[in-house]
């Protein structure tokens, strides 16, 4: 396989399933650090550039959980490939503001901030979101935030007319060679990917702690990553990444998905992880699973030429057991294209970058204060992600009131069987479910006085 690593094209016969971080460090690029090897700290971050037309679009990704095969034909930039002579304004601001202590996490922070400057609308997107996937144990973050804001202010009137990358080169944020990368990428011949092997979606769970698969076949390269709609439905390809879903026009026309998913994982993970992975992983606590259960989604399972369509809620048969036949691929999800009220709640120990103790989603339509077509889901409460059938049924045709909300929560409680684990005691999870059901209504109907 081939890709561009910083300034040079690299060709290797290493297995496509090895971890990009390990490969980079073996190449002598020790700027990216190993902090956790599971995408939870950001010390290993690199930029991954993808050719789109005449431009290259860069994303910050955790190289520790990035299978090498995923970077075939792309431009991978480590901290070494960011360096110019002297310090760039991000590096300079980190030094000036005391945003660095031991220095181990620093290359990751620099990469994350570079990705922000390369992509975001600097006026609209707060710079804090750029580094929400990076852990620093020394500084307490205030100095990093100060540095990020200062670096940002130096280019507040950036002229994007010749493209952001060129503007950043001119502003001394990036080395000159970035301007030559699009041509280099166009000229690079990429081998067709494997046709046989293990299907891999995002790999953000499959590749943690140095786990790997033989001969990975990447679904995103097979065209499973699209989001589209027809007159009746919105379709989400199983390999669509979470960030694409979060920012999709189709979903945001109906729901506040962008806001709902802002606390799902972190940007680098959302750019890699997929909806299909989140569902097929069958974790009882997957945020997207819970979200789409409450949207009463259908799924399509493809085997050879044909496919079968079923309700997402019928897909889960037991702990990590799915209604999935040998060779079947989860092809897409679809939800009805209709405006509904939708609330998504998630409580985790840490507000951001954490797995939920309990999450829950609720959708319904409202006609004359009467609930129609309600769907309630809850995660972390059973061996499978739960569609709360009885509570949903109960809510149908009910007039919204404090009593109805409480009764729905009471019924939901009879449907769950949480266990004590690292994310909380069973007792806590039951209480949380009740509170999150209340929270759905408090959020959707702030004037409703649920007496607690």
């Amino acid at each position, binding site marked *: 396989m081939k890709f561009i690593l910083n300034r040079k094209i690299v060709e290797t016969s290493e297995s496509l399933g090895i971890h990009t971080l390990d490969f980079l460090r073996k190449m*002598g690029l*020790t*700027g990216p*650090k*190993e*902090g*956790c*090897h*599971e995408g*939870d*700290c950001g010390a290993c971050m690199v930029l991954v550039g993808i050719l789109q037309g005449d431009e290259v679009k860069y994303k910050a990704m955790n190289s520790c959980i990035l299978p090498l095969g995923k970077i075939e034909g792309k431009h991978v930039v*480590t*901290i*070494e490939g960011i*360096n110019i002579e002297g310090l760039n304004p*991000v*590096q300079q601001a*980190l*030094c000036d*503001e*005391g945003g*660095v*202590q*031991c*220095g*181990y996490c620093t*290359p990751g922070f*620099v990469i994350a901030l570079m990705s922000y400057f390369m992509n975001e609308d600097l006026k609209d997107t707060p710079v804090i979101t750029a580094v*929400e996937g*990076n*852990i*620093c*144990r*020394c*500084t*307490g*973050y*205030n*100095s990093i935030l100060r540095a990020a804001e200062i670096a940002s202010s130096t280019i507040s009137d950036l002229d994007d007319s010749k493209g952001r990358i060129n503007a950043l080169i001119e502003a001394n944020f990036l080395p000159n060679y970035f301007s030559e990368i699009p041509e280099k990428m166009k000229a690079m011949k990429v081998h067709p990917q494997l046709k046989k092997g293990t299907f891999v979606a995002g790999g953000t769970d499959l590749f943690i*702690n*140095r786990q790997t698969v033989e001969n990975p076949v990447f679904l995103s390269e097979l065209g499973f990553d699209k989001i589209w709609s027809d007159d009746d439905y919105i379709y989400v390809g199983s390999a669509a990444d979470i960030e694409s879903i979060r920012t999709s026009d189709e979903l945001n026309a109906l729901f506040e998905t962008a806001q709902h998913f802002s606390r799902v994982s972190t940007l680098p993970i959302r750019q890699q992880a997929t909806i299909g992975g989140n569902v097929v992983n069958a974790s009882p606590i997957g945020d997207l699973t819970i979200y789409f259960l409450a949207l009463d989604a259908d799924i399509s399972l493809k085997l050879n030429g044909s496919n079968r369509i079923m309700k997402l809620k019928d897909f889960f048969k037991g702990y990590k057991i799915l209604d999935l036949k040998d060779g079947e691929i989860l092809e897409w999800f679809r939800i009805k294209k209709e405006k509904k009220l939708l609330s998504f709640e998630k*409580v985790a*120990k*840490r*507000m951001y970058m954490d*797995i939920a*103790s309990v999450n829950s989603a609720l959708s319904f339509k409202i006609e004359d204060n009467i609930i129609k077509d309600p769907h309630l889901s809850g995660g972390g409460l059973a061996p499978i992600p739960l569609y709360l059938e009885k509570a949903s049924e109960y809510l149908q045709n009910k007039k919204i009131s404090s009593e109805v909300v409480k009764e729905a929560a009471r019924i939901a409680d009879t449907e769950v069987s949480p266990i004590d*684990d*690292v*994310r*909380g*005691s069973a007792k*806590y999870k*039951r*209480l949380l479910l*009740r*509170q999150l059901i*209340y*929270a759905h209504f*408090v959020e959707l109907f702030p004037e409703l006085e649920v007496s607690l």
Partner: protein
Amino acid sequence: MNDLIPPHTRGESIFVDDIPEPKNMLHVAVFISNIPHGKIINLNIGEAEKYEGVVKVITAKDIPGENQLGRIIQDEELIAEEKVDFIGQPIVVVYAKTKEQANKAKDLISVEFDELPAIFDPREAAKKGALIAPSRTFTLGDVDSTWDSCETIVEGRVDSGGQEHVYMETQGCLAIPEEDGRLLLYSATQNPSTVQSTVSDILDYDMNKIEVDVKRIGGGFGGKEDQATAWAAICALGSYYTKQPVKLVLDRHEDMIVTGKRHPYSTDYKLGLDKDGKILAFTADYYQDAGAAADLSTAILGRTLFHVTNAYFIPNVRVTAYSCKTNIVPNTAMRGFGAPQAMFVIECILSHASEVSSIPVSVLQEKNLLNEGDQFPYGMQVEKTTARRSFSQVIEDSRFHDLVKEQEEFNKESRFIKKGISIMPICFGISFTATHMNQAGALVNVYWDGSVGVSTGAIEMGQGVNMKIKTIAARALSIKPERIRIESTNTTRVINTSPTSASTGADLNGKATEIACKKIIERLLNVAAEKLGQGVVSFENEIVLLNGKKTELTWENLVWSAYLSRVNLAAQAFYATPGIYFDSEKEKGKPFAYHAFGTAVTEASVDCLRGTYTIDKVHVVHDAGRSLNYLIDLGQVEGGLVQGIGWLTLEELQYENGKLISDSLATYKVPDIHFAPEITVKFLEDVDNPYAVMKSKAIGEPPFMYGIGSYFAIKDAAQKFRNDKDWSYSAPLTPEKLLLYLYDIE
């Protein structure tokens, strides 16, 4: 600014795992105990030995010297011989050509245990007499006869959890064999001389056959004070047997399983107040969860006792502390070293006493703050205290009283979001409490071109000690800092070092550096005097002055002249903190050179619908003496504070029968950027500290304890939602504990 930082931002700074791997280097896998307590009755390593790529497999019987890690108390084997005492204890070590081969071979090892009953509760251990060392008691005044004169007496229990260090660079070492069996160890340690000495004992070597070199480490926080040694020893053993370089860098998961943490404590207390809120009497029993071996637990227990009264004066005190032996990995040093646990307890008691007496806690705190000359339970009198000054300053700067009113208004209007506030004063003793450790050496080399190399015993771990030493050397020599290079910490250049810990790194090593620099300046001035003839010679800003007037003699040509005159341009110096002592029979003395002070005001919001919280803002007024580097000291305050907040809120170590289940960064949550509060820090002015180098103050640990304020700000907010229920003083205050407090369910 810290001049040593730019390479960090470019990814060019070298940590142990970044050192180019030498030829023939071997990798290590450590086979560990998966039961908390038991006898080894059968161990089978045959399959592992035969596995492809495996070069050597060792067990306890292969250790040529002493199989011992314990420094204070010799009670911890490097490799378990007959019995295991905790999950994570090494039993077999595999050395192989690749990491994968080492790991696969390790998986072929099998062991049979005769399991023994295990203890996980320190109180149960104390009851059964399973103590690491005899308990210790500090006494001041007469507690027993005072209770009768108290208006309010509160009694209760406080629990605080452990804390994982989460240094971003995990533990590791690279061992390189040299001629004559000598070994060079690149160890990620805060404590090179202990690595050197322990490894020597394990190999049955003289210390001069082991060289330990540390360029920097990626965070330590105490976790690499004692517990970097085992991994260095394992690498050294591999090199000893194979004559090949050996590297072991733990992955995060292994690191969390096999290394010790901050000690959990459980405490019973009784405290009495007079009607105005003056504290009259205080007794407490502290049960420390030491884990399965002593490590530094007894020293940590001592520091707990030294800090039971925090920044308050209490005339009658009797406190006893027990270091309890349990079957978890031996706990170890972590920022604050037992003091945070004690200070959390006294703040809980004041909170409790405030509820019972209806005197606001801020009034109780203010009323009992230390005054000049007040005595600590260990006999030392407080000197140059800024406890009151920082307290009143932060009340003013944070607009504390206005904030209380504004929160009241807000809380009236807001149904589910409630705001709360707290004040957290701190007083922290500076010096190693083991008096003999308060010593340091420095070696200053001036090359004939005028450039300077400084070596000390201090380890750079992000706390900026190297920049402080560079500043001290530049000032003491009166030359440009650019001329000075801080060398790696190396046991062949500066010997018999104390660990870089107890916040003393800059104090001790900086002072030794200053003394060495003065020796050189003295010699250079003699050279200048000889050259310039009569008059008063001095040196300032790189130029020799004669009778106060600049001469042609610059640093560079002065140094060259000195070389030509055969003057020694290298100086070694030594510093031992004067005036400190401690009588451990009487438990009285002057263990600290001085104390660090400051106060924080913390604002928090609680979402009482979901049981979640945010720490919104923290205002700090801190006494850093005459700061050697504003940015570095600011960073220590901000970083220490956020780590402290983490300890009391999110960071929860969870075990199942002695097995850590919060064993990754996915399940053990440290503060992220969203969780960090907005922090404002003001350093007190005109607070020259006569007891440390260039009138500065140590700053590594004290700010950690400002984090304790977060607990009480959350509590204050939660009790704005409900206050009809007894508060259980238990940290960390996780969202789970909070929600279960806010609502009663079956």
